[in-house]
């Protein structure tokens, strides 16, 4: 998955809107200047983000003076990539920045190099995190449906006089033929307490 992400086309930075959450300071000016050179549209905020900042493509936030309650979303729930601006490397501050869900960081003072790679790394990490979250949801869903699969297998064993291995094969074939997941097919079998109408009298390729 990670390699697939790494090979995707470059970011369309010119269409990006960035929000810089930092007190007025040369550091904020340097970040804004560098982002504008990269073609982004930049808004500065302090001390709080505003509701419409949830639509930004990236938020770059101060880890030194930052505090809970500055963001219109909960810690770790940002809907876009986050980049922490770190001055003090005290663990308490880094811990706070991490709790917000930093996808990348930039060290103060800001240099002409670093901002572009931080954007790429943050965007990559955010996308990887998003995909992993979706995959975990899918897997959790499948896990909760495991009992349904067992019950559907039992129904098939009784209805068609199969042993467990053949009933499992039969379920897999039925799912494949109707282009659904095994879990969804099993759910339908359990709901109907038997084979779906479409499958009745149509033995699977398992030879039953």
């Amino acid at each position: 998955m990670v390699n697939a992400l790494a090979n995707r086309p470059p970011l369309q930075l010119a269409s990006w809107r960035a929000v810089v959450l930092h007190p007025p300071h040369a550091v904020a000016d340097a970040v804004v200047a560098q982002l504008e050179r990269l073609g982004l549209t930049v808004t500065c905020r302090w001390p709080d983000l505003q509701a419409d900042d949830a639509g930004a493509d990236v938020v770059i936030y101060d880890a030194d003076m930052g505090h809970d309650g500055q963001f219109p979303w909960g810690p770790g729930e940002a809907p876009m990539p986050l980049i922490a601006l770190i001055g003090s490397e005290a663990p308490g501050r880094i811990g706070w920045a991490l709790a917000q869900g930093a996808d990348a960081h930039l060290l103060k003072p800001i240099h002409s190099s670093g901002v572009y790679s931080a954007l790429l790394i943050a965007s990559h990490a955010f996308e990887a995190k998003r995909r992993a979250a979706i995959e975990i949801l899918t897997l959790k869903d499948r896990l909760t449906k495991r009992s349904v699969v067992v019950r559907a297998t039992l129904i098939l064993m009784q209805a068609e006089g199969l042993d467990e291995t053949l009933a499992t094969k039969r379920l897999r074939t039925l799912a494949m033929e109707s282009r659904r997941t095994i879990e969804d097919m099993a759910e339908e079998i359990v709901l109907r307490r038997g084979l779906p109408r479409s499958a009745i009298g149509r033995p699977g390729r398992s030879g039953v």
Partner: protein
Amino acid sequence: MGQRRDIPIGIIYSQAGAYEAIGRTALAGARMAIDEINADDSLAFRFVPHVRDPEGQLDLYARAAQELVRGEGCSHLIGTITSSSRKEVLPVVERAGALLWYAFPYEGYETSDNVLYLGATANQHIVPMFDYVLPRFGLQPYLIGSNYIWGWEINRIAREIVAAAGSEPVGESYLPLGDTDVDHLIAAVEERRPDFVLSNLIGPSSYAFIRAYAELGRRNPDFAPDVRPIVSCNLTEADIDAIGPDAAGVLSTAVYFNGVEEGTTDSFQAETSQYCRRPSQCFVGPYTAVHILARAIALADGAAEPDEVRRLATQTVFKSLYGPICIDPKTGHSHLRPYFGRVGADGGITVLHRAETPIAPDPYLVRHASERAAGPAKPAQPFHLKVVR
């Protein structure tokens, strides 16, 4: 000896703002050392001080440092008190290849080739202080601090130490810098009844809290200072003078307390009276920094080139008012023997304990963490009472 060469040195201490009392003391300490060096005809150079006052405003520090380095040609800066102001000066000295002499205790988590750190870092203040305090008063502190990095980080380290001992703080509160409305803090401490209070408040907030806590102790003997003391890593004689008798009973740690001077005569106290009411760590730190700078330059045959001065400063043991100092060449932080003492009714500090040997600096608390993991801390040392004025 022929004409002495002038070496410009920059000094940045705020003479106004939330910590102006400390800034004035620090500037006085640097000035006294410069006067002593310039009066020493055996030296081939003289220091020409260029002083900048950023008035406690963070956005003025970088410009002040820039002026000193670029405008005045200073390759050595003595200065800054807070970590946030040091962070403002750091990029300037790093770009210019200059050397910043930082003489105050701080929370750690920084090293730079362009800074020498003469004050204590966390393993030389909060850690040994808790080693001393926890066995004597208990494992349940109330943590308070001014709302910035010093208070946040020292309290975080305190939480870790207490957690490693199997306990936790009974409360944690912060005051905005300069805020003196402490009634809610006093009420919270009275309600939670901690074993002691760790205060990382600074300036007027600290003074207001210590006065109000003394009042609480008079009203309710359960909060008398010998029962539930306030302990602090940043309370010095300069603060005590500002607070008055209510500071009595507060426990403090510092690398220098007034009166502990080693190898000096009474003339030191007499001379300092021209510069400040009485010297404290805030005075002696910058004073020592300027003297070490001068001795390193003398070792370099009068050359002030920062890399060479740093090299010599980190491979020499220097005498100081608080004993021999050596600066670790890797981290630029100093080996120090912190004192631990109690403020008396007359404002003097009684030394209760001193680290038996210099503590090697551990600015990222990496050795500390592994030592703690390896086993319980050594039992507390017995009292070593030594009264100093």
